């Protein structure tokens, strides 16, 4: 039952991130804005490229020589995508702020370390189960991702709280206000997807034995897919509901 839920959640995560990311990349092609490209690339890369590659490489169905390169390619795509989360957060929420640049640089350095040290570890692995072992330094990429999603989620929440005040004065679009909140939630859900595996891995445990953690990961994956879809590709009914709700409160 839990395996089926995890599978469905994985499919939803890949589909929603891939479709929304592709749509934002098309938008970036029209607007010629680097920020639009970064968010589109990051979503598409993480959902439709990195995650499937890491799953494929780590499943144990491939010969080890091929599996390690698939896994390393996935880890590289993950590092690039999560670096995109840091860059997007600085550019949009904290442009020109020194501490934010420093935090992003630290996060990207951690990603680079996790990838390089992880790739060296993977090249010496004798079977695919080693890729997800707690000894693999690629776990530091997950640590950096937790930082990235936690930070961007908090920034989204801060902007939501400010935009809600502007909405009360008629100075904000209810859909944009709602999009900030969905961004904050998507950061929280992505963090919940990653944190259990990181924490359990660091403590030397095995995620496969933790039913609660796997259930939380599955639910958070679904929730991330829904939040991302509603934020950047909302159905007309949802748009009407958000705009109507704002009109009633006004």
């Amino acid at each position: 039952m839990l395996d089926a839920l995890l599978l469905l959640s994985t499919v939803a995560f890949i589909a929603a991130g891939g479709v929304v990311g592709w749509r934002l990349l098309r938008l970036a092609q029209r607007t010629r804005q680097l920020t639009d490209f970064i968010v589109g690339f990051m979503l598409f890369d993480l959902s439709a490229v990195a995650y499937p590659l890491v799953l494929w490489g780590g499943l144990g169905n491939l010969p080890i020589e091929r599996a390690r390169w698939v896994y390393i390619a996935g880890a590289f795509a993950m590092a690039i995508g999560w670096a995109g989360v840091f860059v997007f957060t600085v550019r949009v929420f904290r442009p020109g702020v020194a501490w934010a640049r420093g935090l992003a640089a630290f996060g990207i350095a951690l990603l680079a370390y996790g990838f390089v040290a992880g790739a060296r570890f993977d090249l010496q692995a004798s079977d695919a189960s080693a890729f997800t072992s707690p000894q693999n330094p690629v776990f530091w990429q997950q640590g950096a991702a937790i930082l990235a999603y936690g930070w961007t989620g908090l920034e989204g929440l801060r902007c939501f709280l400010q935009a809600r005040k502007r909405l009360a004065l008629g100075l904000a679009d209810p859909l944009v206000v709602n999009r900030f909140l969905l961004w904050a939630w998507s950061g929280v859900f992505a963090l919940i997807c990653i944190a259990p595996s990181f924490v359990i891995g660091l403590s030397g445990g095995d995620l496969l034995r933790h039913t609660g953690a796997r259930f939380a990961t599955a639910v958070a994956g679904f929730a991330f897919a829904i939040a991302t879809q509603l934020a950047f590709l909302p159905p007309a009914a949802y748009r009407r509901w958000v705009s109507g709700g704002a009109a009633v409160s006004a």
Partner: protein
Amino acid sequence: MADTEAFDFVCGELEARTSLDRLAARGTVRIALKQAGLDSRSATPEQMAVVVEKLLTTELTNRGIADAASLCSQIAQKARRLQSSASASAETPDAVFRRLGG
């Protein structure tokens, strides 16, 4: 990033037309902006005008400024005639998230 022209304009008007000194005028306007979820570095003339009309009046009344409502109405009218400065029209989170919605 510097404060916008609209912010500086409103503060200058307050300083010139009330007993508030420069520091008090700017502090009062910043408090009103914070209540509105806005920032002095990105507030547009239209946003400043709304804040002046809807929030600054109360702040000035609390500070003992006489006929605050009429004063704010006049300042808001003038603020609306200003052009948006480059810093106000820069890529704010609002502008990015509006665009990303399609």
